[in-house]
């Protein structure tokens, strides 16, 4: 589904990522883990087009998407969520999700200015679909609330609903459980499984090891910008290099 090949990122004199390669299987949940500063978020930023890598390539279903800006990736079905929640905080929850439908709607400036019948029909369809995504994430009652007024846990859900509205084939989640309490994390786990069951490939960067080991089908471990290990959760838990990286040498 997604293939990262020899990706290297150098910021000034600092090598954030060095020759990282791995594959993400279709329909699976893949976790990217590693200690702080391992380069996980940098890797996400490269895959999702926010950074342009110094070297290496990224493929989405065999198509080279290296260097594509994010607005070209959304129509191809690659979407992400953010660690620090990038909400459209002055808009309502429903409007946030409607922005997710942007790349799948067509009305141009002129037809929006003039409110042509085609635009009105499209608008009605978009609103219906946005509501189904709010329901999907269990926040149907929050549609009219201004996003900036929501508690943190709900913001996560809005962000996921918004991302799902893009109709992703692959969803990258940057620390989705960060800042959530244990009940919210449990709900999140169910939601991620539900997304996977719809056939969406999920990649997540996460520090909550319990969650990662629980839901991931495969795990990639990064340390100091390099790939340390790759395998099933069980293989990773037993890998001596991984234990050393996390706990230090005994």
């Amino acid at each position: 589904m997604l293939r990262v090949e020899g990706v290297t990122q150098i910021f000034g004199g600092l090598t954030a990522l060095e020759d990282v390669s791995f594959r993400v299987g279709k329909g699976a949940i893949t976790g990217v883990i590693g200690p702080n500063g391992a380069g996980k978020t940098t890797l996400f930023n490269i895959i999702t087009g926010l950074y342009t890598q110094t070297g290496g390539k990224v493929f989405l279903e065999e198509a080279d998407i290296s260097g594509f800006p994010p607005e070209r990736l959304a129509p191809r079905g690659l979407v992400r969520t953010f660690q620090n929640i990038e909400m459209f905080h002055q808009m309502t929850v429903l409007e946030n999700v409607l922005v997710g439908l942007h790349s799948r709607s067509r009305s141009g400036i002129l037809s929006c200015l003039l409110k042509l019948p085609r635009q009105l029909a499209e608008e009605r369809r978009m609103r219906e679909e946005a509501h189904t995504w709010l329901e999907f994430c269990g926040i149907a009652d929050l549609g009219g609330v201004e996003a900036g007024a929501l508690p943190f846990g709900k913001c996560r859900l809005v962000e996921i609903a918004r991302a799902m509205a893009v109709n992703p084939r692959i969803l990258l989640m940057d620390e989705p459980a960060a800042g959530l309490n244990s009940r919210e994390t449990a709900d999140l786990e169910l939601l991620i499984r539900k997304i996977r069951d719809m056939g969406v490939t999920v990649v997540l960067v996460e520090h909550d090891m319990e969650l990662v080991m629980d839901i991931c089908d495969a795990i990639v471990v990064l340390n100091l910008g390099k790939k340390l290990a790759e395998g099933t959760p069980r293989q990773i838990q037993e890998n001596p290099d991984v234990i050393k990286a996390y706990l230090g040498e005994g």
Partner: protein
Amino acid sequence: MKRDYLLFILFALLVYAVPTFFKGGYLLNVLVFMGINTMLAVALNLLLGFAGQISLGHASFFGLGAYCSGILTATYGFNPWLTMVIAAAGVGLLAFGLGFPILKLKGHYLAMATLGFGIIVYIVLNETVALTGGPSGLSGIPNLKIGTLLFDGDLKNYYLIWTFALVTMLLSINLAHSRIGRALRAIHDSEVASRVMGVNARLLKVQIFSLSAVISAVAGGLYAHTMSFISPASFGFNFSVELVTMVVIGGLGSIFGSFLGAALLTILPELLRVVQDYDIVVYGLLLIVMTMYMPKGLAGGVAACWRLLRSKKVKAVENAQG
């Protein structure tokens, strides 16, 4: 959403009813200016309030529209309606070309770039004397005409200009409640997230910049044909800043707010004549107090008062029943 359209209909009725009370004279003339300022403020609000991109050079698009229309009619004898279309298209193209490089800039840098553009236009209008008449201005611009109806008096101009202003407001309300309006506000709140959602932020910013410039140019054409005389002094840096003030005082992202801001800033100097030389001091103080106590602008202030009134009414009813 429905509330916006209801409010618009009431507002339009009010606008068309106003001349029944003032048949002409000085006040009507002020209201004509208010209409032009409303158009300009709404246009700038699309860029500043919705997309969150500053422009300190918007008076230059207004000026280019006015001069393009003025020169083509007064000097070359074109039809005024045709020249307004030419001016709008020309300014739109110019803004589109200009937008690509400068809208890459953000915040203060964008402010500086647009400021620079405004100053260049101002200098050009002053220095190309053979074409524009220079600092002493351009006169003899004909009035607009539909059939045999010549827009030459204050009353006729009032209807003409306010029709354009109302259309501008209606189209902007339409835009605000569409996918484009939402994408613009998304860019305002988080450009990164908007792009991840598939919004081509760079192109959309340039498009809205051009649209805003086109509306300003149309307002410029109307201004030229109504006044029959234009000079560069009306299109300088001061007026650009005044436009930004109208939008901010009125309420960022509120179409009716832009009208309120434009109305206030058009009327205030007239009202302040009573305090004579101190007008600029009072003017400044008022603006400071308003930004301090109404951070969401006049539109936000009016909405807050409305809510307060309603909750008081509800309480009064409850008390009466209880």
